[in-house]
């Protein structure tokens, strides 16, 4: 019987885990008395917890498979179905808008600050989603462009006194430029090779920032970066936070707006075609290299703008903010949220960035939790929390007139 096998398998897994964790969970060197303590109770706990975890895991796995067999194509995510429904869309968007409008006034500054970080990650996630989710290019050095934006604002302000609002559009161009420059040599590579080389490039940028003292002030970083002004006027600390909150909300809206348009345009379709099948894509008349480069450069554009906001918010940056872990966090946002799905990425960013902030106990093990989440999502929801849905076109056959329904 299946359940018997189940139990047997879980027992084996539990046993295996008990052996694996034996050195750390059971053996403890007592340095005061110079003895070794064996904590056998821990062994028991590991066994029991692993056994039940394995049973639950298997249960969901089987349920998932049973569901998959039933229907493949009809599982449009709930949120998309609701947004398609005209009666529901307006109230829903109204509630979301009201929530985000009221947020900084209802919650204390600390929460506003956390929400700003999360929204910056929404921007970064949507940008990286172009590269990874749509064009299928695994970029592990994305944080480099984030750093470019942050340092652009810090340095241009330091040396030339340029304000936030001047640097923001400049940084977008700078990000594009860097995207093209870094993309040009590396985009001839594919898959794993591309991932490794972009990882290298990302680290190079960070190491340059760390060591080129005269340019970037090295590991000491740059302090006293001014917050954005409102027509030349500075707010006090509390109001500045609210002001930045609204700026970043506006930027997120702009990102969603443009990314959605791009996704359902000639270039967006080309990205997806490239991701799905490179050879067929070229045979359809699409310039592979140009298409990759545009994805890479556009992704960089949003990263750089995110960087400017980050610098303005924290008022202090140093190279430690731009390590490989940052790239991986953004990648987790995209993969866990749902590759290629804007709504998924937004949900992913909010969940992954807000949760660790509020569950303080977890935040120490942030990367561990991300890893575990990644595995769980890969197994149970391979398309991410909210998978992407393509645009539906309706045709009036007689008149050949078309109406479009977008899901966003």
């Amino acid at each position, binding site marked *: 019987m299946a359940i018997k096998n189940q139990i047997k398998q879980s027992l084996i897994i539990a046993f295996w885990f008990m052996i694996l964790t034996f050195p750390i969970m059971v053996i403890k060197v007592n340095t005061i008395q110079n003895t070794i303590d064996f904590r056998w109770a821990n062994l028991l706990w590991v066994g029991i917890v692993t056994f039940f975890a394995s049973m639950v895991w298997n249960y969901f796995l089987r349920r998932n498979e049973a569901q998959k067999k039933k229907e*493949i*194509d009809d599982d449009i995510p709930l949120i998309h179905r609701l947004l398609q429904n005209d009666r529901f869309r307006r109230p829903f968007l109204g509630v979301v808008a009201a929530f985000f409008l009221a947020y900084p006034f209802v919650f204390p500054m600390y929460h506003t600050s956390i929400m700003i970080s999360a929204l910056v990650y929404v921007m970064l996630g949507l940008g990286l989603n172009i590269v990874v989710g749509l064009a299928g290019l695994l970029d592990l050095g994305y944080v480099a462009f984030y750093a470019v934006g942050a340092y652009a604002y810090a340095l241009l302000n330091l040396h030339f006194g340029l304000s936030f609002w001047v640097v923001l559009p400049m940084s977008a161009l700078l990000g594009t430029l860097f995207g093209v420059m870094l993309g040009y040599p590396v985009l001839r590579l594919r898959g794993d090779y591309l991932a490794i080389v972009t990882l290298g490039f990302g680290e190079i940028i960070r190491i340059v920032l760390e060591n080129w003292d005269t340019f970037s002030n090295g590991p000491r970083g740059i302090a006293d970066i001014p917050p954005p002004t409102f027509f030349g006027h500075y707010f006090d600390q509390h109001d500045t936070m609210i002001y930045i909150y609204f700026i970043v909300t506006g930027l997120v809206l702009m990102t969603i707006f*443009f990314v959605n*348009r*791009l996704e359902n*345009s*000639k*270039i*967006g*379709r*080309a990205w*997806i*075609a490239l*991701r*799905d*099948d490179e*050879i*067929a*894509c*070229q*045979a*359809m*008349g*699409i*310039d*592979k290299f140009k298409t990759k480069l*545009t994805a890479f450069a*556009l992704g960089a554009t949003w990263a750089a703008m995110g960087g400017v906001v980050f610098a303005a918010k924290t008022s202090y940056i140093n190279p430690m903010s731009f390590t490989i872990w940052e790239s991986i966090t953004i990648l987790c946002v995209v993969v866990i949220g749902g590759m*290629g799905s804007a709504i998924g990425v937004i949900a992913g960013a909010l969940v992954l960035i807000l949760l660790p902030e509020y569950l303080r106990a977890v935040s120490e093990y942030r990367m561990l939790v991300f890893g575990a989440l990644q595995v769980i999502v890969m197994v149970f929801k391979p398309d991410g929390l909210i998978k*992407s849905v*393509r*645009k*539906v*076109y309706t*045709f009036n*056959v007689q008149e*050949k007139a*078309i109406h479009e329904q977008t899901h966003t």
Partner: protein
Amino acid sequence: MNKPILSVKNLTMNFGGLKALDDVSIAIEKGQIAALIGPNGAGKTTFFNCITGIYEPTKGVVEITPPGKNTQSLRGLKPNYVTERGIARTFQNIRLFHGMTVLENVMIGRHCRLSSGIIKAMLQPPSQKNEEQKAVTDSYEILEKIGLAKYVNDMAVNLPYGAQRRLEIARALATDPFLLLLDEPAAGMNPQETKELDDLILWLRDNENLTILLIEHDMKLVMSLSDWIHVVDYGKKIAEGTPEDIKANSDVIKAYLGEDSDDA
């Protein structure tokens, strides 16, 4: 006399020590349905790949003379430029874009005939909107012609097998070709689907002004459709002629029956 629409001379393709194509010359006339046949591994798909720029041939000349235009060489062009010049193809192992709907798969074919760039896609001026609408209607019309309109918003992977093969043809048509290369379009189809394909290919030639070169193993289909047949075996061209000539050709029969050829 008119120049052939596609003229391939002395085409050779080496993979390391393997001569997948050895000095093959083939000419396709305008308005023909031509077939390229030969046993498995003869080099037929490689021939397509050399013409369409997926492989760069080791040696040889590939020239096209599009209707109303001058002769030009395709050698060394990237696949997307070959497509732009008016040659479209399908793949032996179906290569649809599985993350997209049926309509979008066809719209990808329109890609090289659309002009709006990134900035226009973001700002959506009227010119971009019109172009996009036109791409949608054009693609839908192609789906209607090919008989796939009912699947328009389905994901391409969820189509029945025969419909997937037809979608490959629809997608190729969307690039506005003058020459269509079909790589085993009937493979895996049932007799009913094969019959429909037969009609579709004839219809394409007669109504869309297309010249067609097809690779096919279904001899009944090949013999009934083709105006001219080219036969390759072990990378070498061994015969060409009308279906009647080919049926009677002893070299061809030998190649297909798998007898040892005397020039081993």
